């Protein structure tokens, strides 16, 4: 008997029944297909403007910084300013996503844009978010050919771009947006990111930047919503 058979057999023996079939199995199958929402916190039910405010408050409470720009075209100049303010290197690793690579980087010649996946020596990474979740101040990032997830983790400093139109109130809305965009199969990696990396493993002292980025900056693009 294989381990699989043993385990399934034990479950059924302990539950004093055979394999679930017929109507019982249909019910469970339907439960998955429906993926009904459980309790959704009231705080997430806000008009878009309120969601953006809540997202920023939560994100900043987690030690990230945020700013809003009127259009995506403003991003290169804002990143130049951010890097100089924070005294960060001007070489940035950018996800190979049209949304970012297509920006007018030639207007900021001092910034060296390197397109690709994250590597060990990257100091700054720039990547696009799939959604923002206001409830907890959380970014949803998807892996894909244009959005390697290493850009979110390897560089010491992470800048994420989030379109305000992609802001949702609660996790459940983000899952629905993901299902609508991707069908039933998820991308290899879905990252929910709430603030920069931290640890409290040495005498419970909070230290930022344990393994992931030490800083997280979110640029919210008000794309006409």
């Amino acid at each position: 008997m294989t381990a699989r058979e043993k385990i399934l057999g034990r479950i059924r023996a302990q539950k004093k029944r055979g394999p679930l079939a017929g109507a019982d199995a249909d019910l469970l199958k339907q439960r998955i297909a429906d993926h009904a929402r459980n309790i959704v916190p009231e705080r997430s039910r806000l008009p878009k403007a309120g969601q953006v405010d809540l997202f920023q408050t939560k994100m900043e409470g987690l030690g990230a910084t945020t700013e809003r720009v009127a259009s995506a075209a403003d991003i290169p100049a804002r990143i130049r300013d951010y890097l100089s303010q924070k005294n960060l290197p001007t070489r940035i690793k950018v996800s190979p996503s049209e949304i970012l690579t297509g920006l007018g980087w030639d207007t900021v010649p001092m910034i060296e844009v390197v397109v690709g996946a994250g590597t060990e020596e990257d100091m700054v990474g720039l990547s696009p978010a799939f959604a923002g979740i206001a409830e907890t101040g959380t970014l949803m990032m998807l892996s894909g050919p244009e959005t390697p997830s290493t850009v979110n983790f390897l560089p010491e400093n992470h800048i994420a771009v989030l379109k305000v139109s992609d802001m949702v109130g609660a996790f459940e809305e983000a899952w629905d947006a993901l299902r609508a965009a991707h069908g039933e199969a998820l991308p290899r990696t879905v990252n929910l990111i709430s603030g920069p990396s931290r640890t409290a493993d040495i005498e419970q002292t909070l230290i930022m930047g344990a393994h992931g980025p030490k800083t997280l900056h979110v640029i919210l693009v008000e794309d006409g919503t």
Partner: protein
Amino acid sequence: MQVTSRKFKESAHEAMADEDLRAAMNRIRTAFTTARADAAAELPEFESLRDQAAEIKDHVLDNLDYYLEYFEQKVVAEGGHVHWCSTAEEARQAVLKICRDANARTVTKGKSMITEEIALNKFLASEGIEPIETDLGEYIIQLADEPPSHIIGPAVHKTREQVTDLFHEHHQQYGYQDREEDPEKLVGEARTVLRHKYVTADVGITGANFLIAETGSTVIVTNEGNGDLTQSLPKTHIVVASLEKIVPTLEDASTLMRVLARSATGQEMSVYTTFSTGPKRKDDIDGPENFHVVLLDGGRTEMLGTELQELLRCIRCGACMNHCPVYHAVGGHSYGWVYPGPIGAALNPQMVGIEEARHLPNASSFCGRCEEVCPVRIPLPKILRYWREKTFEQQIGPQPDRWAIEWWGFFAKRPWLYRQTTRLAARVLSMIAGDKGRIRSLPFAKGWTSVRDLPAPEGKTFMEQWKKHNREGR
């Protein structure tokens, strides 16, 4: 890991005399409990979310076979593999086989209690494969060659000086000659040392907080981001998870996420919650080429349909130990196996045998705090009582304890005799204590009187006072 639960009493005594441990436990008692209370108060739906979280888990446990098969089918459809393992040994062998197929020499690891449970590190090392823990706390105790003392903060018992010494000893090979004491610099050292390991490791092993049937995803929750580097840089990603971690849908996982971090550290969300589904896709430019889920039973299915089933709702948040006066007093190592605190006291007798873990069900003051804070409402005190009864029935408790219980049973069945005897005892104790009302030393109660005085009864039994109170009340 080596089971030492049998020595609970000795270990607890040593632990209570350890000043560093006292300080560490004080930090837990204050920091974690306040943070949890604040987080719970911030979310009006918190209590109903706990009810729902428990319901979801119950539903899964009642239909576990269905959801496991569904999950497996989804993992396979996305290009991954599922390895069913009945025992720890099967799980170790499954991991070894995958490592061998990957020609692995080094393996990075995210935090995983199941790999502690199956003692994977020792095993891999004995097979010539170097395991490298990447969660800072796990890394520290790996250098110290110690087991974790808390399920979410494995190195909570370590002082900064001890970490300084460990890093000084082990990091010189990487060019760190100075003895660093500043926590920020210590974290920086570990960050740099481990960064290179992520990139060069052949296999990355993580645990899973949840497995999602709907999508065939595995989910990890971390604050450091180590799990993400562990699972995205090496060619092969192995997830080692126990089978009760399954939930039906992304929505169900969301409900559990809402109670997990709040109960654990008082955060609304941990920094990184990561859903992994299959290996990297055809055009992806990063991510692992192979994805394996090693699914461990390890004695869990035997708990289904029994008094212990509710323990399988546990989401390993650590709240029960953070709030436990006994854990605060004796620390995590005293419990003698992977899981400390109330959940350990309730679970370990099943996992390592009641004979070995017979002291653990007594490591409780039955104050009920654990059940009050458990996000999935596990009736931990009830389960500890179940084990106490078991040890009594099976006659494996210490002989004096059993005599005491038998004596008490004899009197309790004879109310008149019981009242007379307790009345006499109350008066005698009151006389011994004299004016001070406290007894310095008493034979048969040395465990108590060697470290503190016994407050003496004032001369009347509870029953007498109750009657008097009722008469006067009327």
